[in-house]
């Protein structure tokens, strides 16, 4: 069942720039330009793209605080902008750089307020709060004023606040931004658990690709308001023509060696780096090298997803 459906969605912004003393020029920017995708119930999707690609605009349209200029958009069967308040009861939103918590009051007070805002039945509220407190380790923080929480603690607090009302969809905008390694791991573990156990659909934007690697079975890359890749994380390597690297330590220093199916990208004394297509097996290449040159040691390096995506952005920019 598709929970989120976008069909050829466009969103224009009119930007006025001053061109003279009194003259102003109007310019139309297509922040989102012909965006189409569907997300099924229970999926966890990474939504990535460079700054200004249209990620936030998409999330704003999905939450109903921005209407699309054209196209069709449905979340849980309704048009978000038309039924914003009704939909708000069924979605959870966490912005890494914003907070819904009440700054000067203990964390618990914000949750009590959420209970009333979303009219959560008392037993659901108790059960959900207990679960969040356990999974996010909030027990000791419930009576601490939010302003005294560290960024990681506050983030965990915000996540709990967004999930107390059992939302069907959870939108996360950079949920791990600025967090330390331990806090990041905890947040990811929690999100994985929510997605797995509750079947909550998660749409996650991030610049931290580890978030995606650890959480999302599916990645959508958008740029200039369009989807440029939609598929598995592994498939991204193929789509981005990514390369793996075979590092060989030869018995003695040599000029760049020649092996079919690979090219040397770097030479440093007896050590040489050979790049080859990521989807190709390393075994025949190792055999070919060993056959021709005396080999002391070797290792294979996987391509960094960052590089793949960076290349993808660059290609779109050129193309």
């Amino acid at each position: 069942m598709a929970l989120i459906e976008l069909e050829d969605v466009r969103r224009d912004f009119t930007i006025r720039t001053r061109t003279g003393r009194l003259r102003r020029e109007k310019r139309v920017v297509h922040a989102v330009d012909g965006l189409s995708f569907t997300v099924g119930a229970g999926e966890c999707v990474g939504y990535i793209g460079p700054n200004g690609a249209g990620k936030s605009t998409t999330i704003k349209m999905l939450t109903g605080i921005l209407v699309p200029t054209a196209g069709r958009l449905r979340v849980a069967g309704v048009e978000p902008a038309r039924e914003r308040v009704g939909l708000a009861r069924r979605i959870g939103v966490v912005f890494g750089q914003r907070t819904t918590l009440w700054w000067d009051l203990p964390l618990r007070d914000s949750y009590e307020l959420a209970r009333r805002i979303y009219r959560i039945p008392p037993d659901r509220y108790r059960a959900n709060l207990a679960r969040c407190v356990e999974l996010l380790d909030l027990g000791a923080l419930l009576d601490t004023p939010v302003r005294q929480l560290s960024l990681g603690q506050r983030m965990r607090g915000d996540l709990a606040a967004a999930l107390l009302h059992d939302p069907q969809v959870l939108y996360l905008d950079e949920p791990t931004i600025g967090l330390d390694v331990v806090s990041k791991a905890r947040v990811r573990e929690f999100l994985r658990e929510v997605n797995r156990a509750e079947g909550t659909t998660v749409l996650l934007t991030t610049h931290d690709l580890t978030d995606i690697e650890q959480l999302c079975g599916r990645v959508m890359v958008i740029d200039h308001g369009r989807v440029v890749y939609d598929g598995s994380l592994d498939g991204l390597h193929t789509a981005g023509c990514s390369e793996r690297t075979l590092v060989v330590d030869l018995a003695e220093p040599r000029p760049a060696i020649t092996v079919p199916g690979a090219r040397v990208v770097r030479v440093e004394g007896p050590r040489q780096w050979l790049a080859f297509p990521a989807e190709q097996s390393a075994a025949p290449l190792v055999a070919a090298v060993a056959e021709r040159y005396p080999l002391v040691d070797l290792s294979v390096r996987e391509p960094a997803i960052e590089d793949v995506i960076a290349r993808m952005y660059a290609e779109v920019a050129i193309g």
Partner: protein
Amino acid sequence: MQLAQRLRPPERKAGTGSVRLYLAVAAGSFRRYSTYRAATLAGAFTNTVFGCILAYTFLALWQARPGVGGYDSNQAVTYIWVSQALLITVAVWGGGFQDDVQERFRNGDIAVDLYRPVDFMGWWLAADLGRAAFHLIGRGVAPTLVGVLAFGIRLPGHPYTWAAFLVSVLLAVLVSFGLRFLVSLTGFWLHDSEGVRSVMVVVALFFSGALLPLTLFPGGLGELARLLPWSALIQVPTDVFLERRSGTALLGALGFQAAWAVLLLAAGRLVQLLATRKVVVHGG
């Protein structure tokens, strides 16, 4: 949690649910302001010092011109202390929820407010009422006590007067909220309502009667000042406190405040609608 349960439409018990929510918001806001103890003490001290300065000035003025503005000198001094006690409660200087909303415009948190299933105006009104309740106690009691002990001001004897005074203060807070809410909403167009706000503070100080009773304003200016909404902030509740209004005149005074409150809140509602439309349709 079952899918069927999740897909069930949310129960619509709008009435009691909303009332409880807004009460919780007001209570939270009250508690929030009560956490700033040092600020409250310092503020009450400031009100008291200004009360003393103004009280001595007024005493000198009323000695030179007895009965000016229709007050005897004790009433004039009472006026000063009551207006100092109300100054922060009715937010003549602006502030309260305005600070929060302005900050949220600046850092973009205002977007968060729009995707919560809560009415923006209702939320901030409840928060401001909670704040006002705290300030009435935290910033009002000390100046009143000093007024009684050091200047022998007269407190109303009749419980009805106290009741009418509290109603009048509530209406004053509603009018004040209505005015400040409109100022805050300009943020949707101007991105920062600070400029509009500073102008409004000057107007509010002058026309609320916080500096001088409006009955001292000459001729047409006085007439005008007494009709403008700002007179509902200080002049009217203080006159109620002084028992200068009774019977139908009292009802008239409260009706005057209520009319402005309704008008301003309705205007706020309308502008909020336009502001939301602007954001949703045209983009922030």
